[in-house]
């Protein structure tokens, strides 16, 4: 009886199901089949056997990954960079959005918004080219300026210590327009009556920003930040790979899980170990995003992802 009902529903929805079919097949092939390929993390991979035919080797891949010390280094870097990106980017974007809203005239606002959004449209390869332009030892603009002011040039591409600052600045540069527009949309949505009431009460502009604008932004900020925290173990491969590439001198302060997995796969060919590292990242990522979603759900049920 139940079974009957199921097939009747299938027939009834046949066109809709057919319309859904290409996307379903696509995600089965490119997302769910690779998910099953996770077993590779517990195998000694060889090309003849492939993912499912290669022999098992227990936790050897994980042991290799953790005992080399790489696991701690790349996990720490990934998390610390993402925390720095979240703090710097959000503060900058909120400040820019508030000031654009408060002071800017129509034309100034339009032009500024256009300029801030521009870096979002550029590929990471071009960002890498720009970095070369700025940081190259012989001809880079940074050293041109240092020399012009009588200081010693710095060898940026050979000094790991500079890179955390550089990467945070580049990330801020690329993301500032995107975030500013999001926050500006949230500010524009604030009820103007609140501002008028504050004005009648004699509040000055700074009090108004502190007591009305910022508290009204809390929901947006909290949601965006929590979701970003959910992705704290996912490194931005495009950023790190194009800024640093395969420059081993910088890895101590720039290697993240994603660049590490990529290198282990393509250059050192340690397939089992890179699969183990990828699996470790997926599990860590899944746990944090569930946690973040739980937090969002507690805060505001409607804003939760699921």
């Amino acid at each position, binding site marked *: 009886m139940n079974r009957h009902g199921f097939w009747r529903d299938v027939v009834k*929805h046949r066109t809709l199901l057919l319309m859904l079919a290409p*996307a379903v097949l696509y*995600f089965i092939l*490119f*997302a*769910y089949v*690779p*998910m*099953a*390929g*996770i077993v*590779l993390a517990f195998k000694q991979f060889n090309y003849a056997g*492939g993912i499912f035919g290669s022999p098992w080797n227990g936790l050897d891949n994980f042991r290799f990954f953790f005992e080399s010390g790489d696991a701690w280094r790349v996990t720490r870097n990934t998390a610390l960079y993402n925390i720095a990106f979240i703090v710097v980017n959000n503060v900058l974007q909120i400040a*820019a959005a508030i000031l654009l809203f*408060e002071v800017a005239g*129509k034309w*100034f*606002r339009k*032009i*500024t918004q*256009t300029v801030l959004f*521009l870096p979002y*449209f*550029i*590929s*990471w*390869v*071009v960002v890498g*080219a*720009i970095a*070369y*332009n*700025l940081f190259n030892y*012989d*001809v*880079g603009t940074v*050293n*041109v300026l240092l020399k012009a002011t009588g200081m010693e040039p710095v060898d940026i591409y050979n000094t790991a210590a500079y890179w955390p600052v550089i990467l945070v600045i580049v990330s801020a*540069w690329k993301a*500032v*327009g*995107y975030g500013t*527009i*999001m926050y500006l949309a*949230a500010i524009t949505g604030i009820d103007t009556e609140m501002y*008028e009431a504050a*004005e009648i009460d004699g509040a*000055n*502009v*700074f009090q108004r920003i502190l007591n009305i604008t910022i508290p009204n932004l809390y929901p*947006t900020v909290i949601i965006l930040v929590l979701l970003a925290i959910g992705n704290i173990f996912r490194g931005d491969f495009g950023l790190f790979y194009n800024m640093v*590439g395969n420059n081993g001198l910088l890895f101590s302060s720039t290697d993240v899980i*994603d660049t590490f*997995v990529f290198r282990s796969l393509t250059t050192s060919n340690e397939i089992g170990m890179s*699969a183990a590292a*990828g699996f470790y990242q*997926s599990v860590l*990522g899944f746990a944090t995003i569930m946690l973040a979603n739980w937090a969002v759900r507690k805060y505001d049920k409607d804003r939760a*992802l*699921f």
Partner: protein
Amino acid sequence: MSTTGINTGGNVQMAAGKTQADRRLLAVVGYLFLALLAVFCIFPFLLVVSSSLTEESKIIEDGFQLIPTAFSTEAYGILFQFPDQMLKAYGVTIAVTAIGTLLGLFLTAMTAYVLARKDFKWRGHFSFFFFFTTLFSGGLVPWYLLIVNDLELKDRLIVLILPMLLNVFYLIVMKTFMSSIPEAITESAKIDGAGDFRIFLQLIIPLSKPALATIGLFIALGYWNDWYNALLFITNENLMPLQYYLYKMLGNMDGIRKAMLGSGAVVTASIPTESLKMAMTIVATGPILLAYPFIQRYFVQGLTIGAVKG
């Protein structure tokens, strides 16, 4: 100030003097901060443009400068004198972007429409089926081996299109938009005897034009700027997309020399490598910079839909 709709004073006399001073201070701080931020954002672009137009010997001597110390279009001259490789890369990128965007947009819209249909019995199940892939994945390695070993797509044009064809975030935005189309439209078309696919094609697509434009541009930008899939899967020089070609050239000036020599070009020593790198960067980014003023508002639209729906 006028655009915010906030009262700028006049009728509130009591604190007028005080608020005036505050406003002036905020205006000074605000304009200064925003102007500096804008300079920070645009400065690198100007630097690249200027460097591409500077005489090579001056770059070697003085480094990259904001204003060309000695103006020269030599780098562009060489680039356009032997454009074969660059044109090939342009061709690959244009083909991939066009096919990927059209196909991806159609599939996104079709899938999103089914998920937006409130009378579709399994919409919750299928939504979760798609959404789950953003929470958990098998990671890079199994995915890479699937494409290279099992599907044998290495060095095929299609490998630049397939990985970016469908994106769960765009599905959600599109579904949100289509959910706002009144159900009565679908209902009345059904009564007139139209099938689901025809309703989608003839009614829903025309009504979804704003969302299609926005999502289509996001997809197109993704394809245009993609270098990652080429990094993983392309070794054949004839199949290199523009950004990956640029990546290769930036890291390997010998490659440039060879390419130039291969096309019967000038003597090796006289190739202005530094300014040429920058000229290539400009040529690879050019179409986006030119289109930017016209397409920007669609992206802003997309972001604000995203902001509202979380």
